[in-house]
């Protein structure tokens, strides 16, 4: 199996999907001749041509709005938003159009499209090149939200997303775009949406994370192990649909849960997970569900590593939860 990083895996998934299905097109800013500012679409323009690898004007509402029309007419568009922070000019299209098209037409129409966007901090990007806006979209019924943490899942989940009957917001952890490497199967395969993965079995606490923060959670769990604290780590992978069974199963066993995310704490997805876990695992819980998250501020520049819920803060939470 070839070794790839996340960006190569995304690129490979797009190529596989486009070879296999002539209805798949990609569109976005700089995605065509240049191959994207992160090189996610590199080589696609040469292989599939300008009709299927489309450089758009600088207008996210157009990148998503025209994708809606394409999807209605039978294409499988994959829109790239250059940074997740710039998804908001398309927010109206996503929330009011993409998410509701099937429902408001009584199921006559569907809007199967994928919106890919690099998200997250730790790259010295300040307010507008660092945000993790997943909660806005999970909160909008009608959208699926997927966040891979590694190359294998990036490819398999993207292929599944492109073929999914529903619209998928696909957030890519840009901090580990190149740093996270791993073996990726050649050719076609899918990782089903809605399935979490236990990446480290453990008995004393469950650490739940996704995307770039999975790497911090994993690091914290290793450090905890060195202190004799045995943590289970779950990579959520798909936030909507959510693999609630996997979470309930794990937390019922460990009795302690820590949710890690980069987004601000208030109304972050950790709040929802915390509520679900106390509803479903109440009698098993040995400690309150802990959230280790970004703070209720815009994403900062200089103090970004203080802001980010990195391994040392997660480790502190593990110690506290276990000794509660």
């Amino acid at each position, binding site marked *: 199996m070839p070794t790839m990083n996340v960006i190569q895996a995304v690129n490979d998934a797009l190529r596989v999907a486009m070879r296999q299905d002539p209805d798949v097109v990609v569109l976005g800013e*700089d995605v065509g*001749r240049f191959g994207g500012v992160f090189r996610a679409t590199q080589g696609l323009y040469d292989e599939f041509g300008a009709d299927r690898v489309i450089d758009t004007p600088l*207008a996210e509402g157009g990148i998503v709005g025209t994708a809606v029309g394409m999807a209605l007419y039978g294409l499988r568009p994959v829109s790239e938003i250059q940074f997740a922070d710039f998804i*908001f000019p398309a927010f109206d299209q996503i929330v009011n159009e993409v998410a509701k098209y099937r429902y408001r037409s009584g199921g006559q129409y569907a809007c199967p499209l994928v919106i890919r966007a690099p998200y997250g901090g730790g790259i010295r990007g*300040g*307010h507008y090149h660092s945000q993790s806006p997943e909660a806005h979209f999970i909160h909008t019924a009608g959208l699926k939200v997927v966040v891979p943490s590694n190359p294998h899942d990036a490819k398999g989940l993207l292929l599944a997303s492109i073929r999914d009957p529903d619209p998928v917001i696909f957030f890519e952890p840009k901090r580990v775009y190149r740093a996270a490497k791993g073996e990726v199967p050649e050719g076609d395969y899918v990782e089903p949406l809605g399935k979490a993965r236990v990446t480290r079995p453990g008995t004393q606490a469950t650490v739940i994370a996704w995307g770039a923060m999975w790497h911090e959670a994993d*690091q914290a769990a290793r450090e905890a192990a060195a202190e004799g604290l045995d943590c289970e780590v779950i990579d959520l992978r798909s936030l909507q649909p959510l693999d609630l069974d996997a979470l309930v199963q794990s937390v019922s066993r460990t009795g302690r849960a820590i949710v890690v995310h980069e987004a601000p704490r208030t109304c972050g997805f950790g709040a929802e997970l915390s509520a679900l876990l106390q509803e479903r695992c109440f009698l098993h819980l040995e400690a309150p569900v802990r959230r280790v998250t970004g703070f209720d501020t815009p994403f900062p520049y200089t*103090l970004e590593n203080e802001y980010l819920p990195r391994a*040392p803060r997660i480790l502190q939470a593990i110690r506290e939860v276990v000794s509660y």
Partner: protein
Amino acid sequence: MRREHEVSPVARHPRLAEVDQPGFFLREFPLQTVLRDDGTADPAEVPLADADLVMLYRWMVLNRALDERMITLQRQGRIGFYIGSIGEEATIFGTAAGVETRDWIFPCYREHGAALLRGLPLVTYLCDLFGNARDVMKGRQMPCHEAWRPGRFASISSPIATQIPHAVGAAWAARLKGDDMVALAYFGDGATSAHDFHTGLNFAALRKIPVIFACRNNGWAISVPRERQTAAETLAQKALAYGMHGERVDGNDLLAVLNATRRARARAAAGEGPTLLECVTYRLEGHSTSDDPRAYRPADLVETWKRKDPLLRMRRFLLRRGALDEAADAKLRDEVREELQRALREAEAFPPKPPLETLFEDVYAEPLRQQREQLRELEAAVAADPRVGNPRHAGT
């Protein structure tokens, strides 16, 4: 009598049939130039006294030296990012010098030169780039996202074109208050595709709001050339559809830009409405320090534009005019270099990080309860483990 619901035949402009002909709009919106290739200019078109012209030239030289130095600093890892204006100095200083100091500026991310002209101290600007303890933005924004209220220079955000309606609103407010204030909005050629461009121009034209829409057409939106941004021959012609005045000016010609801006300001102040000013210039470097333009841009194209370098053209003009000689030019460059060096030393001496509590300030006028709690939580985390905030100890 015509009834309301009947569609009236469009009044056809006699020349409307020509609109489809290639070159029509290029002729209708001719590129206005003052500085000729031989370094001369029509004396009637020279808007300032020699000393002021030299002063603006010095600003362009300083801005160029600053950009070059900061790109080097970024490569050395001393600042995180940089986005400069190399090649676009005449557009920036021509527009900024063409309005009054009481006028507000709503910048994009390449107009730090306009802020410096408005009195932003160089040291302060450098502290902003470092995001250090002296950064006016308190280390919150990435480099080149400065704000400078004393100079009526608004705050920069990365999302493209968002500042355009802000400029309209500020100018509108000034008119409601009876103030003589014209807002100057900067944006690029790519921004003309964004919805905020449309919204801003439509609102402004409808209400004859005193705004100057300064479009820095530098030929590129990252890798997307101007020709693939819009099918329109010129950007200036977009003014027509909104019912406002538009002009196209040689953006590498400081005097042409200055004159056009002054005309636009006079029109706006007289209640005649906004102007869309397309300044045709060229981005000589990569989009930013994150970009390598060799992947998408033929080098010979850049060479052609280098010969039209706005600094060279202004220098040639000043030398020919006798406002500057070689010795004075060399001295000016030395001074600029020293000024930069001094400011850099001063800025780098400040502590690299703003205090922890600044993270939670200014989100609201007063921090909320949970923010105060989160500050305590972060302080405790830092106290318990010095690795918190230190990326070298992070996961991946």
